[in-house]
């Protein structure tokens, strides 16, 4: 993926660039809002990573201008401001995701990759398929290798999210945010328990596991 990082803190920028490069992505860096906006307009990117606090043009304004001029690359806000109000503000300005500093590198990579994928699959699919696992979004049925799998509504949404991001790492926080719409960290391992239940249903009776645990990061659904 080609990623534009707009971040004024040089150390932080260096770190993010390193993290994303290690994950195999091409990263350009801009140190302030105005040049970031120019760069984003002049070059096609798969994703933007924008710090909220920037010299001479803050992130919200930058993204608003970018969207107004027809820019369509998905954007992730990085911010030290973590309150729900700020988050909502960021999403209203045209952001696609919002990550609060400090964050784990794996979280950043997972979210940026999820953004890139989102940009590619805008068309509304009615069927999702990973390996032998098939999901019919209209009939709300799941079948693996011809065997019907019964899922609770929440499990269905969990699996749908994993399948939409098949091949990518999905973090626990992402799942809590996107599947449950909660923006806080429970102290118990609620997400792990739900994922392991889901795993019990889709993987247990089959030879090859699809749902993998990525140590220190999250989960990945992959054939």
């Amino acid at each position, binding site marked *: 993926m080609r990623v534009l990082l707009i971040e004024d803190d040089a150390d932080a920028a260096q770190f993010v660039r390193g993290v994303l490069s290690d994950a195999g992505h091409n990263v350009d860096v801009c140190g302030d809002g105005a040049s970031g906006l120019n760069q984003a307009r002049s070059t096609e990117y798969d994703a933007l990573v924008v710090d909220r606090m920037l010299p001479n043009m803050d992130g919200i304004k930058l993204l608003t201008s970018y969207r107004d001029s027809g820019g369509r690359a998905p954007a992730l806000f990085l911010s030290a401001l*973590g309150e*729900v109000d700020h988050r909502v503000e960021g999403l209203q300005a045209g952001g696609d995701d919002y990550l609060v500093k400090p964050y784990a590198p794996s979280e950043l990579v997972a979210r940026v990759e999820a953004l890139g994928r989102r940009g590619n699959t805008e068309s509304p699919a009615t069927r999702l398929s990973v390996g032998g696992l098939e999901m019919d979004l209209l009939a709300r049925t799941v079948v693996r290798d011809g065997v019907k799998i019964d899922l609770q509504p929440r499990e269905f949404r969990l699996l749908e999210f994993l399948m939409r991001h098949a091949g990518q790492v999905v973090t626990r926080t992402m799942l809590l945010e996107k599947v*449950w719409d*909660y923006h*806080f*960290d*429970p*102290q118990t391992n*609620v997400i792990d328990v739900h994922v392991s239940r889901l795993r019990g249903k889709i993987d247990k009776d089959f030879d090859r596991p699809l749902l993998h645990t990525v140590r220190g990061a999250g989960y990945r659904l992959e054939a």
Partner: protein
Amino acid sequence: MNLGRLPALVRTTTFRLALVHASIFIVFAASLLGYLYYETAGQLDRQANGELNAEFQELSAAYRGGGFDRLNQAVIERSQARGKFFYLLQDADGAKSAGDFDVLPAQAPPLGEVVDVKFNYDARTPGGEPSRRSAEGRISRLAEGGVLLVAYDVGDLGEINRRVSTVVWRSALVGLVLSLVGGVVISRSAARRAEQLSRTTEGVMAGDLSRRAPVAGSGDEFDRLSQQLNAMLAKLERLVVSSRSAGDSIAHDLRSPLTRLRNRLEAGLKETEPDAQVAALARSIDDVDGVLATFNAILRLSRVQAGATGSFRRLNLVEIADELSDLYEPVCEEQGLAFEYVSDGELWVHADRDLVAQAMANLLDNAVKYTPVRGRIQMRAQRERDGAFALVVADSGPGIPEADRERAVERFVRLEQSRSQPGSGLGLSLAAAVAEAHRGELRLGEGLGSGSMPGLEVALVLPAASSKAITGGRMKLIRREPDAVT
């Protein structure tokens, strides 16, 4: 009155108002007394004057009809009749011709004019005692020479006149003094209340947050102002105290993990085995994550306590409870705990979904953490007896002794038996702060256990959404929510 404080007193609004009132009172009193004078003493005066005119007219008519002699005759007759009037008629030479007086009390006017005079004369009482009396009269020069004086005694009339005017003036003076004194007294009492309020705020500004404005109990404007000021100060004090204790707690709760982290990194530095170094680093990252989580929890709690967060809207508590039971039921099962969920219809409240969910998640986290295997956890969404709605988490764990319950919701307080468990000690505090942000409360009680394991029951009690909003789904909620921050 202390004169040294007079200028300050004069500057007060109330004193000025009192002064205005006094002025209005004086104008009113003056008009009233003037009218009184006009109707009493003035009336007598005018009456006497009218009679004098009539007498003069009659004598003038006699003079015109029969000349000096006729006039002389009339004066003699009238004088002898001992009527109301006294007379003196002088002939052209200035000698007394008839009447009661011997000399004129004043210079006679030129021909064609009259002059009114006031004078004293000596008379004898019926007992023969000499007495000095007052009279008023009119002098006129006659056309053919001679002068006529007609006068009446004003002894009684003058007395009445004097008394009435004395009464009028004294009343006016007393009224003036009373209204001024009243104004000053009222002004001083109001000024004193204002002074108390201002002393309170000065004390608070000087750093004494425990100062409160006195409430007289009369329920007047000053009392209401004092009560509001006191409520504001109480909240301010709570916030300041909690931010102070947050500072202490940050130092306390973050110092030990940071120290541990430092030691681990140092130990890792000395490791020669690459595997051991990696392991040390990995554990260090876990430590940092823990510190960050605590830090975030502190910030979040501070914001909730300060009422600085949340988007409040009408929502059904049962929906939140459904979602949470869905989220936590598998967790309980995995921990070997029986999970039970009971809900009651629809419980509409005005709340922030994320805050309520987080508070409940904290309570459920605690329940899962502290309840031993094969225990029970129960979540209920229910109506309280007082009409409020509650989300309740009950467990069969060790519970919290009644004496400790109040302390347990304070920031960072982790009761001794829970020290060994992971966690920031902010769960109950956050739930309490969330309850407060919704104008509700957090109630702690005994849970599902018995004996040495009484269990804990925590209820997040929220006020029901106003009935107007319940009956009319499309109605706009007009009441402004004080905690809604956008």
